[in-house]
């Protein structure tokens, strides 16, 4: 049994202009000790998926299942879910400056994470906070424990966020764009830290990002999201070696890469991300797909395994031979 099993997750928000369907039926699983990368652009629903699993999506209608070690988080009472948050599942957010409380010292914020779930004294919690800050690679943790968030650099702040998340030895860590706001050298350090922590603790990790490079580097499995749905899911190596979905091809083709020839032409994906209030009918990617057929406007493609690899699924109405042919052309 996987650590986290999400099945048929749907999340919608009632707005003045109608119902906004942020996540339209998403299923995936995360194994203990493995990293699932969820890749998508703005409006793909990747963040909302994570927030919904954590029970943090305010004002949302959520349906489906999210089973952590067999226990469906979505059916828990608010108070039960609160006990799960920060203890069994923890989350790290994108912008550590705005995600840390500006008026609380960092040690206090980390210690609070401990005291919410463990019955320990203030002194013990503070000692644990110092320990955690050291574990995430903050130099001189005993001194830094009393620092204000604005006194630390971006990388340090993100380490504090990670320390807070680890306070109660969660089995699952969700990191939502943890390095997007950071410089590339700092990003490398933080990714290395996450990798080390995962290996040491056997945590399952969900890493949400728009950066394909980050996913390639860190993830074991990848789910590509578009317009609130998963369009392709595969082990990372497979996804980059033999992607099956036209959107994935589009992403790989449109991104400049250091490991490709410099003169390689960037091929953008035409059009723009769809409205989630009135999503396109049929295959949601069809208005932007260069290989669209009439049928694709009306029929929704199910997420189905690719022949020969049960771990690789794709939601595309084109049949496998056609896709293979198309992929031989200038793909990625």
């Amino acid at each position, binding site marked *: 049994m996987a650590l986290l099993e999400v099945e048929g997750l749907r999340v919608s928000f009632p707005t003045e202009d109608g119902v906004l369907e942020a996540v339209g039926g998403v299923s995936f699983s995360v194994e203990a000790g493995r990293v699932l990368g969820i890749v998508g652009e703005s409006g793909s629903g990747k963040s909302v998926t994570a927030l919904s699993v954590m029970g*943090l999506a305010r004002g949302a209608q959520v349906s489906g299942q999210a089973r952590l070690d067999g226990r469906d988080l979505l059916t828990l009472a608010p108070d039960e879910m609160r006990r799960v*948050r920060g203890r069994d599942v*923890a*989350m790290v957010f994108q912008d550590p400056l*705005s995600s840390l*409380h*500006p008026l*609380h010292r960092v040690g206090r914020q980390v210690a609070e994470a401990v005291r919410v779930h463990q019955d320990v004294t203030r002194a013990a919690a503070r000692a644990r906070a110092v320990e955690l800050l050291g574990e995430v690679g903050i130099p001189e943790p005993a001194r830094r424990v009393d620092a204000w968030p*604005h006194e630390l650099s971006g990388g340090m702040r993100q380490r504090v966020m990670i320390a807070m998340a680890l306070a109660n030895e969660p089995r699952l860590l969700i990191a939502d764009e943890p390095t997007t706001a950071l410089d590339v050298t700092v990003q490398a350090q933080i990714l290395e830290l996450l990798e080390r922590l995962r290996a040491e603790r056997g945590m399952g990790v969900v890493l949400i990002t728009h950066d394909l490079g980050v996913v390639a580097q860190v993830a074991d499995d990848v789910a590509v999201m578009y317009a609130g749905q998963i369009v392709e899911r595969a082990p990372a190596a497979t996804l980059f070696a033999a992607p099956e979905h036209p959107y994935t091809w589009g992403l790989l083709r449109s991104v400049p890469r250091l490991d490709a020839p410099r003169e390689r032409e960037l091929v953008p994906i035409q059009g723009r991300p769809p409205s989630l209030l009135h999503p396109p009918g049929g295959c949601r990617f069809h208005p932007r797909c260069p290989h669209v057929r009439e049928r694709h406007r009306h029929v929704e493609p199910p997420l189905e395994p690719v022949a020969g690899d049960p771990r690789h699924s794709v939601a595309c109405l084109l049949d496998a031979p056609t896709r293979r042919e198309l992929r031989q052309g200038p793909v990625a």
Partner: protein
Amino acid sequence: MAGYVARRLLWVVALLLAVSAITFLIFYTLPSADPAAIRAGRQPTPELLAQIRQNLGLDEPVYVQYWRYMKGVVLHFDLGFSYASDAPVRDQILDRLPATISLTAGAVVVWLALALPVGLISALRRRRWQDRLAMGAALVAISAPVYWLGLVALYLFSKDLGRFPIFEGANTYRPLTDDPAAWAASLLMPWFVLAASFAAFYARLLRANLLEVMSEDYIRTARAKGVPERRVVLGHGLRPAITPLVTILGLDIGILLGGAILVESVFNVPGIGRLAYDAIRQADLPMIQGTVLFGAFFIVVANLLVDLAYAWVDPRVRTA
């Protein structure tokens, strides 16, 4: 922090000097001719006029007069002499100060006790009936002129005039040291009347601030840690939301200590406000000058204290 305090103190001194100079100059350049006559009050005798001229050195150039005045204020805390009421300005002001402090302090307690819970609940129950009711009432309280509110309160509730005689009416003030019970009883209505518009304003402000704070990322982090909602609101949300109120509170207290003219007049509380009002009616220039300077002093000091409090509350300000 120490550097910040020192810088602000210097600024306070400079400000007070500037205020006193401007006040002095305004009264000095008042159009009607004779400075002595202005100070003498109504129907002065020629002897009085001569005496005034001599005391104040009115024939001397303005900066000399200013210098003497300031020397008096700074060294002896002497704000001049009110010929209209035949007493030193300072003594009269100090005499009335306790009443003003009583009125201000009580009103502050009342309006904070009202505004904080109301603002909090309104924010948490946004758009529900509690919120709409509270904000509606707040709007009325802000819109009602305070003297009208005072008169209506007297008309309805004062023991001597009112339809439902519950509270002590106007003119019943007793100093705290004389008779605490009577002191409190006499100030109940004035406190609530004075507090009304402030409570409304602060409640609205707190509501707005709290709504904004509660949508911040760090609140989401607190929830993600599993912090119970009550603690999220009170421990994480309230403090950033309240900080701007601290600033305003200090300023309001500073202003009120200069005298709440309207409330003091309606309820005949013998405070500085009433004193200033009487002085204006009697064209008692030294008294007017004195009360203005006094009020300015409180505002400037209040400003300073507020800035210091803010720096203490929000560590990001200290490095600025």
